[in-house]
């Protein structure tokens, strides 16, 4: 059959010029580092305050989780509602969240009201009251929220993988236990605030329609009173990953199996990191990857398969995930194992490498082309000691990666022999098939939570 009007796919134009937004940085006497970037898309300013907040005790996740839920629930001057109304009146929002590394206060405000939002932020940092009634409300709520979270396969699978990968490291205990939450009191939160909500080691990022130096002056004025003593706690580096039997976590009646595979990643500042980033993209890091083409677009086993490198203060981890129909669980594991083995042992093509290189460079540029995207990215980078210059230089690093380097990186990070696997699903239906591929250890969910 002839096609009368074959049309060529248009070539790309010359790369758009890179925009270097105005920025300014300042280290305050209190230890707080501040960066302000002018990105005048809309008349707003995005704010991210990152306070290092890792801890090694088993009850730490509960305490920091409760602190995040009540930090903005009233100050010496205003109750919870009055504080929220004051933020709302600025067209603003302010939220606290936590992960294993940090406490994050994130928000947005009309640019003309930035000094007012900074004042309110300063008020919360220096005068948070942790009213006993609000602590009680949030304690009960968090226990219920955790029950809802732990009903979700994605949460259960993540917890199971983290326990497998990180053993006794604090990263294995991400979510609080209900019992530890129930034990948190208002006086204990006030004490934790005094010890840990301190400017030393903290990073504040402002991005938006602002004048950088002026914004830094506004920060210096508004947060002058936040000068508590204290220092962040160091977090132990991640333990080496020990591959073992495939751990099947039983979820009776599950209609899908949540496959989760983890391995040791490379940190962003490692010279080989750009090569591992590209190798991972070829394998499973974007829609056009080998893994998605295979188990979704060819076999129809899954709605989505992903592979990414997760960066924490304690180290970096490769994470592969796919949720597949129960009946094809073993078959999907065969294909995932095949693609991992293939990328680790045979060279990718120049075309594959060029595709992911352009994808990585283009999507990085686009992700920081929004106020919120740039603010969040800079905040994350600040947590591992990197900043605007890393962001500006990274495209060049990606451009220099050779085929040999990408191949070598794949062998280092994606080789199946170095990876650990967890499958959450109906063990009665999936374990026999999985056991044909590799040794299998079946555990029940009840064995999972720790005190």
């Amino acid at each position, binding site marked *: 059959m002839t096609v009368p009007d074959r049309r060529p796919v248009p070539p790309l134009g010359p790369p758009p010029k890179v925009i270097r937004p105005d920025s300014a940085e300042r280290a305050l006497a209190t230890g707080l580092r501040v960066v302000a970037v002018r990105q005048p898309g809309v008349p707003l300013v995005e704010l991210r305050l990152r306070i290092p907040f890792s801890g090694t005790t088993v009850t730490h996740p509960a305490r920091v989780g409760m602190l995040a839920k009540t930090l903005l629930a009233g100050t010496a001057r205003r109750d919870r509602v009055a504080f929220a109304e004051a933020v709302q009146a600025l067209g603003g929002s302010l939220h606290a969240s936590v992960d294993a590394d940090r406490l994050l206060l994130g928000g947005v405000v009309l640019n003309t009201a930035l000094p007012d939002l900074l004042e309110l932020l300063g008020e919360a940092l220096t005068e948070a009251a942790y009213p006993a009634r609000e602590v009680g409300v949030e304690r009960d709520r968090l226990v219920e929220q955790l029950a809802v979270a732990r009903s979700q396969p994605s949460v259960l699978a993540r917890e199971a993988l983290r326990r497998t990968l990180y053993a006794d490291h604090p990263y294995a205990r991400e979510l609080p236990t209900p019992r530890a939450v129930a034990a948190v009191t208002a006086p204990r939160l006030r004490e934790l605030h005094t010890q840990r909500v301190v400017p030393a080691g903290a990073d504040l990022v402002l991005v938006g329609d602002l004048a950088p130096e002026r914004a830094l002056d506004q920060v210096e004025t508004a947060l002058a009173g936040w000068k508590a003593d204290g220092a962040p706690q160091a977090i132990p580096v991640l333990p080496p990953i020990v591959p073992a039997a495939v751990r099947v976590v039983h979820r009776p009646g599950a209609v899908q199996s949540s496959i989760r595979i983890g391995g040791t990643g490379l940190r962003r500042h490692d010279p080989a990191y750009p090569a591992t980033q590209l190798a991972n993209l070829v394998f499973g890091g974007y829609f056009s990857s080998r893994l998605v083409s295979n188990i979704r677009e060819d076999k*129809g086993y899954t709605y989505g398969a992903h592979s990414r490198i997760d960066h924490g203060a304690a180290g970096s981890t490769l994470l592969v995930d796919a949720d597949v129909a129960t009946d094809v669980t073993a078959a999907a594991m065969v294909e995932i194992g095949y693609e991992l083995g293939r990328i680790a042992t045979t060279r990718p093509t120049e075309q594959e490498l060029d595709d992911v290189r352009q994808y990585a460079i*283009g999507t990085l540029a686009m992700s920081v082309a929004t106020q919120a995207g740039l603010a969040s990215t800079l905040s994350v980078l600040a947590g591992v000691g990197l900043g605007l210059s890393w962001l500006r230089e990274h495209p060049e690093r990606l451009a220099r990666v050779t085929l040999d380097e990408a191949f070598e990186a794949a062998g280092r990070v994606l080789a199946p022999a170095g990876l650990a696997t967890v499958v959450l699903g109906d063990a009665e239906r999936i374990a026999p098939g999985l056991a044909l591929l590799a040794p299998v250890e079946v555990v029940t969910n009840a064995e999972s939570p720790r005190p």
Partner: protein
Amino acid sequence: MATAPTLRAPTYPLERVTLGNGLRVILAPDRTVPVVGIAVLYDVGLRSEPIGRTGFAHLFEHLMFQGSANLEKLAHFRYVQSSGGTFNGSTHLDYTNYFEVLPSNALERGLFLEADRMRAPVINEENLANQISVVKEEIRINVLNRPYGGFPWLQLPEVLFDTFPNAHDGYGSFEDLEAATVADAWAFFDQYYAPANAVLCVAGDLDPAETLALVERHFGDIPARPAPQRPDFGEPAPTGQRWHTRTDPLVPNPAVAAAWRVPDPVGDLTSYLPFVVLAEVLSDGDAARLPQRLIQRDRVAIEVGCYLSFLGDPFDVRDPTALLIQAHHPSGSSAATVLSAADAELDRLTADGLGPDELARVKVRIATRLLRDVDPVLGRTLALATFEQQHGRAELLAELPSRIAAVTDDDVVAAAATLVPERRAVVELVPGERA
């Protein structure tokens, strides 16, 4: 309140052209970042799928990614991503969108990709079978294997509405999905995917004259065919409370959602906007009324939300549609207790009116959120395309803040007064074995 606040509006220059084949084109240049967004919206959504083919509009959206006249399977994804861009599509009640966001040097390539599938998608047995499998996995991961999955957008319409287009499950039954044929797909394409039934929006780092020439080059010779007449999906509102209880073995805690019919968002925007403001009064954070009452004061709920439209976007839906209140609560409190507390707060609002600065605060928050949503080029592209598609006026994006500013305390109180038990449909979700 004495004066309405001046709210900052997201304003972009707009150019509008209709091609000879009927394709409506909106351009919104803004050269502050080197990114372009491209969106094609077709005027067909979940409400238009035939009886016996639930889920078909969404399944068809998947088929539009499976290759086209000049692109083999997987090529669409590869061309977008190897240009440094990202893509997706989504199926809504009243439209289906396809979009890319790209570094601006890939503008022409993006236009080519959209034009190629508007001209001639590749639809065959192999791709159909593959995507039926993929969609079934999508439903498993988002609904069947996930506690609270699809709640309440998949369960509440069948209680609030009586007619198939409005009431059915838009994700579809496996039985209907598996029954879909290649012939169904071609009929659907022929009927709904005509250029005259679509809007193309291109926003961001572009030159309008050059872009118009590119649009004409790639889309101009797609043959014209008539756009279908959109049916009237209107139906009477409930006249008494409707209450449906579902037991679900997967959920650890109960949840409840209630929906009330609201004015026509397109035909009567002026009457609709007070409900948009009301939803914020009721649910925007710790300063809002339902969290204060249900979570902090009465302690009967864990989470509570209030929003317009089953899919959560107040401006992407036509009549008939709804305002929803949704709460998760501990097993110790009942759905009736939760809704009684919400009723009490609505009564208080109706009786006492809004607080002194309440309306002003809420309006400025709405305006900020709108600005924040359109700062990303993609968010802006989709918003403009949707306003053009649903309202015939992309200009509404810039006008919304002043329209919101014109809403009065009395308007909001009057809207709240319509949210009575006798007009609502309720679904409660209870832990336990299915009956």
